[in-house]
């Protein structure tokens, strides 16, 4: 109030000037006055109070009914003032939360980061973009002692912070597997027990695990309810789904996962994704899986990394740059 009291004189001058001349200049200064008041956390009722005081000083003989009506207005504005103060407090609180979430998001980024492997046999591309700050998708590359490449892709059901926390648990469990060669079905069975024991009943995780052997060019894989990927045959220039049956992680402790094998010839590709890709929709229309393979086909002359980026940009454009879900895509292409 004290700062404003100092300003009473200038407000009075301003008001007088406007009443007498009604010029733009005074209106502009009034705007400055209100901006300054907002900065000083001055509430609307305080401004009305100043207005009444200024008016009474300028026109002492205002009719008493007008005077009462001004007081009435002042009373009415007091609740607005309170609401405004509450709004300010919430705004501060929100900024605080936002900065906490971005710290957590950065930390998650560091925790979940994985290095894309460099292999002469295989061209690897990977992209993963969260819809909000925290990513509920996860992918991970690991090379075992025999030189095989393990690739995990997972999607936590649920979005935002809880999903991200669950993802960190997945990451730690993955890290705790030994370096020796691990079959995809064994990994999923282990992960299933971890998830079943540790997460809320309404939460579950879909996961795909593949193991590429550069000597035999065999891609072994198992799926725990994960969105099917694509296999591209260079010889036939065609895509088909990588079908694999298996229950999502975290529902039934005793479930067994079947393991499948796909042989890769030179130029063949394996495309892994999460349902953020297939659940894209534009208005009321859903993206069909054929559209995804068509877009990949269109860019197949590019490197694996460039293909993933082009596909991402394509669907980002279709959704007006507003992702509804986290988007993850990995492409492996046999080089030699």
């Amino acid at each position, binding site marked *: 109030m004290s700062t404003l009291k100092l300003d009473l004189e200038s407000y009075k001058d301003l008001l007088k000037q406007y009443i007498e001349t009604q010029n733009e200049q005074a209106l502009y200064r009034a705007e400055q006055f209100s901006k300054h008041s907002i900065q000083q956390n001055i509430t609307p009722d305080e401004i009305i109070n100043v207005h009444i005081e200024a008016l009474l000083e300028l026109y002492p003989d205002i009719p008493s009914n007008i005077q009462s009506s001004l007081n009435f207005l002042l009373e009415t504005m007091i609740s607005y003032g309170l609401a405004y103060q509450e709004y300010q407090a919430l705004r501060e609180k929100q900024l605080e939360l936002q900065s906490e979430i971005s710290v957590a998001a950065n930390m998650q980024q560091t925790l979940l980061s994985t290095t894309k492997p460099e292999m002469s046999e295989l061209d690897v591309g990977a992209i993963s973009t969260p819809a909000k700050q925290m990513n509920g998708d996860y992918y991970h590359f690991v090379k075992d002692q025999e030189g095989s490449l393990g690739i995990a892709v997972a999607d936590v059901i649920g979005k935002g912070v809880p999903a991200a926390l669950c993802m960190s648990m997945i990451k730690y469990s993955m890290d705790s597997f030994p370096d020796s060669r691990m079959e995809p079905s064994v990994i999923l069975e282990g992960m299933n027990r971890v998830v079943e024991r540790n997460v809320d009943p309404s939460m579950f995780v879909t996961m795909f695990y593949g193991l590429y052997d550069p000597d035999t060019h065999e891609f072994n894989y198992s799926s725990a309810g994960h969105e099917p990927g694509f296999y591209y045959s260079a010889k036939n220039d065609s895509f088909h789904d990588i079908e694999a049956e298996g229950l*999502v992680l975290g529902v*039934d402790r005793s479930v067994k996962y079947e393991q499948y094998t796909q042989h890769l010839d030179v130029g063949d590709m394996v495309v892994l994704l999460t349902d953020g890709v297939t659940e894209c929709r534009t208005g009321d229309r859903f993206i069909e899986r054929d559209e995804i393979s068509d877009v990949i086909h269109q860019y197949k002359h590019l490197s694996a990394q460039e293909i993933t980026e082009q596909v991402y940009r394509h669907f980002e454009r279709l959704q007006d740059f507003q992702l509804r879900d986290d988007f993850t895509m990995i492409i492996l292409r046999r080089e030699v």
Partner: protein
Amino acid sequence: MNLNIDVDHEGNNKYVSLSGEIDAYTAPKLKETILPLTQDAEATVVVDLQQVTYMDSTGLGVFISALKSTKEYGGNLKLIQLQERVYRLFKITGLTEVIDIETDSTVRGGM
């Protein structure tokens, strides 16, 4: 996006009819309605999804909770009349193997 939920009781048989979309916004409401129904001993909860045009993975989470809860209380959960796109989600996630889902001609698109 909206989800309408209608519940009919007939003794231990509960019939839940849904229409609209099940996503992160409507799933909490569905969970609040369905879970208490599954907590009556030996209840049979039938969920009709004929009018559900869209469901995302958050919806699956609700049905998994419901499944676990019916098992715990000795009841049954059954889903009927799923549209093709919704059925596909249950199929991919392997849940068709653990949840009783009516897969006769009412599954549209012949999956």
